[in-house]
């Protein structure tokens, strides 16, 4: 059963990934990307990583894709099509992608994965929360804070850029 669902999800991801990069309509590409992200969330659910799956849904599907779509709505017209990529370029890109895929597969199959002894099953949100904010060993408080400041800086920067153009 789980195997079947995995294959369905995997196939969806592969199919829509290809469609995302080949579609000439930018909003459709964004929607294909949404399907890829949704299927990824499905795989997380399958692995019982519920928290990660919900984060995937909120941040990527509900956040990033919405922002992309929003930006497209503000800028693109409905009959707007992206220029087709010339053949040499697409062949080169395909070649690079295949090399990359080969490298990843080689690395994955070449590494001998061993279980880390942690229990299978749902992870407690509490544990995630406390390790995110703990400053002991394996605590993530420093990266957490650094990323917060980075995001804040990005936000302030965005506001400043928007403001300056408005005042001119």
């Amino acid at each position, binding site marked *: 059963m789980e195997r079947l669902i995995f294959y369905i999800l995997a196939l969806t991801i592969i199919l829509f990934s290809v469609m995302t990069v080949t579609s000439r309509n930018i909003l459709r590409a964004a929607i294909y990307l949404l399907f890829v992200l949704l299927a990824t969330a499905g795989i997380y659910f399958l692995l019982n990583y*519920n928290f990660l799956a*919900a984060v995937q849904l909120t941040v990527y599907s509900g956040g990033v894709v919405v922002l992309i779509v929003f930006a497209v709505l503000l800028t693109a017209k409905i009959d707007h099509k992206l220029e087709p990529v010339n053949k040499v370029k697409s062949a080169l890109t395909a070649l690079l992608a295949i090399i990359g895929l080969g490298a990843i597969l080689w690395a994955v199959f070449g590494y001998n994965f061993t279980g880390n002894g942690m229990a299978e099953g749902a992870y407690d949100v*509490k544990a995630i929360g406390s390790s995110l904010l703990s400053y002991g060993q394996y605590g993530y408080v420093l990266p957490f804070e650094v990323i917060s400041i980075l995001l804040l800086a990005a936000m302030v920067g965005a506001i400043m850029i928007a403001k300056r153009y408005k005042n001119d």
Partner: protein
Amino acid sequence: MKEPLDLTPLTQSIHDYLLSYLSPFWTTTVEWVIIGVLLIAFVALSVMGLVYIERKVAAFFQLRLGPNRVGKWGLLQTLADFLKLLMKEHITSKNADKFLFNLAPFIIVIASFLAIGAIPFALGLQAMDINIGLFYITAASSIGVLGILIGGWAGNNKYSLIGALRSGAQVVSYEISAVLSLLTIVVLSGSLQLSTIIESQSDGWWIFKGHLPVFIAFIMFLIAGTAETNRGPFDLAEAESELTAGFHTEYSGIKFAMFFLAEYVNLFIIAAVGATVFLGGWMPFHIGNWAAFNEVMNYIPPVIWFFFKVGFVIGLIMWFKWTFPRLRIDQLLVLEWKYLLPINLVNLIVVAFIAMMGWYF
């Protein structure tokens, strides 16, 4: 003391019965089909009921009678309307992006169906009780806005586009407030699992136990929830006096009905989450140590309690819609970013402090 009616044995027995005849693979499949059919039937029925109630409520506010011709007291009016919508022509305008135009209603409906799966209707009557239930519901319903966005864009109509942009700005902003107000209860009950949150209210609902901050959070949740479902006074995405019908101007027939369906499902979800988190879900109403009174309350089945509370919240939201004028888009965003969000953040800190000190009942 009488225990609340537990439906777990019922579902367990169905599971055991199926397992005795079928392999585990097919058992799971059959159970999925059963749950899917039940949910769809429930949603279809409850939406029809909600539309009928909405019409009657509107009629009550507007000194009218409301539907009263089709069926007894007009009960079949919504069914008749649904059949009418079902048989209408599908019109897709020539310059529309047909794929996305047809996809949009499905996205919005699927998003709301995903969310309804985690709603606890009664003790043991819940399609999935995952450990991050509340987070999951907000995550699933956050996809719905995409349906509005691409639906408004793909119709190639300027009213739709304006409506979609308004809706996008609105839903994305108000989601923050909705989640923050729910977080107050997560802090108090210490869990995201809906069954645990309900369990934590067995000695009193959070709205009574949590003092003023939780009450404020409840009000915030109602405002943000109304805004998230695009209902009046926050119905800027539709705004029929400005944008004719906003993002679904170009839709007709069953595709329009799906937007309609999703609106009411979302309304139900918002009300159900509010009832579960703040008003104790299926927990009966108890008063301190009035044993006899509490005993009587226990005799009312949990399902009834749940729907009673959901109905209460829905009634409040309908009351807003039929009395208030609509806000303007800049006022809407100012309300969220300058008022609701700061109040919510401060409120969350206050609640966290209360939870730390254990100052709740």
